[in-house]
């Protein structure tokens, strides 16, 4: 148990990322690496509520936007350190999440209805940001006033510090989800059948809210990182559908409801979309999105449980073959717990 397979993968992944980040690779590749880690981090946060607890949110960019705007506005208005701004952004994201999650969970909103509610929240946040022009710059967005490299101001000229920060954030998020073993089981039970879970002494609301709060906090912090790294935000980019969808996609393609699924999804999807954009996208505008879409559809059809399910499928097939050869009757049954 001490060194389970996912733990080994996690350690190897972390080491590989550290080596990659500090090796003399082109700046653009480093940028893709940072982007990948950002989505791996936020996807892990998304996964806690949406993967484990099965409350599918397609509006999580609302919390990215809240984190990002809180940080940049506090910095521009009262020159509050972005590190504190980051914390405030995370907390504000939690506040907004509670406002939505509590009534949703209390009145049992789930399935497509919860998803619709999450999209509505995203639209509301986006509209508010657009209309509060004096504070947010409206649809023109806000840019971060340039400061020379300073740890206190969370601004750096090179890519490496950003890489290191997002690596640490990602590590913390994955380790946190890892440590929440009991809560993960509770959330899975709630996802599968919340009445049956309640009958076993599991507090449905408490656990759902816990997952939502942690998810919003981490994603809000991700938003703060986003604005510090990109130095410019507008409501449509940071609070729009594209980020929200990408968070869901990295988790679902990688394997939602698993610890490393979102990370594996991000490691594959984000570089893939960048490569496609540079190669196919330069031939015909929009073609890369078409190819990307087709690849997603194929993955979802053949691997509904995500890429992390591949070893399990192979093992089950082997066992079935072995059983067939031995007894002539196929008995399925994978041994060894993966997650």
């Amino acid at each position, binding site marked *: 148990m001490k060194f389970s397979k996912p733990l080994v993968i996690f350690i190897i992944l972390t080491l590989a990322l550290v080596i990659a980040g500090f090796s003399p690779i082109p700046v653009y590749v480093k940028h893709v690496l940072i982007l990948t880690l950002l989505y791996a981090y936020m996807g892990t946060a998304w996964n806690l509520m949406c993967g484990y607890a099965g409350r599918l949110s397609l509006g999580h960019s609302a919390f990215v936007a809240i984190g990002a705007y809180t940080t940049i506005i506090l910095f521009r208005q009262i020159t509050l350190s972005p590190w504190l701004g980051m914390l405030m952004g995370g907390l504000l994201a939690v506040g907004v999440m509670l406002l939505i999650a509590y009534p949703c969970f209390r009145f049992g909103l789930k399935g497509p209805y919860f998803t619709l509610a999450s999209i509505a929240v995203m639209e509301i946040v986006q509209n508010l940001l657009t209309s509060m022009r004096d504070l947010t710059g409206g649809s023109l967005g806000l840019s971060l006033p340039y400061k020379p490299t300073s740890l206190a101001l969370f601004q750096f000229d090179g890519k490496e510090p950003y890489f290191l920060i997002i690596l640490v954030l990602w590590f913390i998020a994955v380790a946190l989800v890892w440590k929440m*073993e*009991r809560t993960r*089981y*509770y959330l*899975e*039970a709630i*996802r*599968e*059948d919340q*009445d*049956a*879970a*309640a*009958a*076993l*002494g*599991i*507090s*449905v609301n408490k656990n759902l809210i816990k997952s939502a709060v942690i998810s919003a906090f981490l994603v809000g912090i991700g938003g703060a990182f986003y604005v510090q790294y990109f130095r410019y935000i507008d409501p449509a980019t940071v609070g729009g559908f594209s980020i929200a969808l990408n968070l869901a996609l990295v988790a679902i393609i990688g394997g939602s409801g698993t610890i490393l699924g979102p990370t594996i999804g991000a490691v594959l999807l984000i570089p893939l979309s960048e490569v496609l954009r540079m190669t196919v996208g330069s031939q015909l505008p929009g073609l890369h999105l078409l190819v990307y879409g087709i690849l997603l559809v194929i993955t979802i059809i053949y691997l509904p449980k995500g890429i992390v399910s591949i070893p399990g499928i192979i093992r089950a097939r082997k066992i079935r073959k072995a059983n067939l050869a031995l007894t002539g009757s196929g008995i*399925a*049954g*994978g*041994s060894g*717990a993966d997650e």
Partner: protein
Amino acid sequence: MSDNILQIQNISKSFGGLQATQDVSFDVKEREILSIIGPNGAGKSTLFNLITNFYKVDSGSILYRGENIVGLTPDAVCLKGITRTFQIARPFPGLSVSDNILVALLAKSKSVEEARDKVPAILEQVNLDKKAHFMGGQLTTLERKRLELGKALATDPEVLMLDEVMTGLKPKEMDEMMDLIRELQQHMTIVIVEHVMRVIMTISERVIVLDHGRKIAEGTPQEVTSNPEVVSAYLGRRSGNAGN
């Protein structure tokens, strides 16, 4: 008084215009097997849902060891020591059989490891040890029922409420299930909703009969089955019989 673990006092519940439970009162004694019977729609499952607070009672109180548990959430009722099964077994389909049991053990375990250690014993008790790695959704109806019972046992209840665990079982399987229930009686109080008369006559010490949401009889299995009102509830009333 002290040997009554559960006291149901004048509870009523209506859904819109339908009076599902009407002024029902009864006591459950410590370590007894109490059966609740009645025709379809008599309000047996509603009564289960009321006692475990899945439904809120309109009026009346439910005392568990002298404490009114009305208004608690279902999970709090379970933590107090009352666990119910569902009439249609509800395994967690996407979790393995052993994880189903593990989840049920968690609420009363200090750590996940502690819970994990207890899983094999429960799987063995409900005869699912060979299916441990199957998904909950892959089980047959009978296995689902056994898993449902295993999950309930995993919560270490003081009052176990079984909603039609015998339905669909073959006679031999019923005998096994009855043996298991008698064995469980050593450690807990058992309330059963059941249709199968053979089971009720064999294992219950007392029987409560419901009809149209009201309690119409209470007593030993023999007393209840010879009660004319019970017979008429099952077979229909003769014209001229007094209603109430």
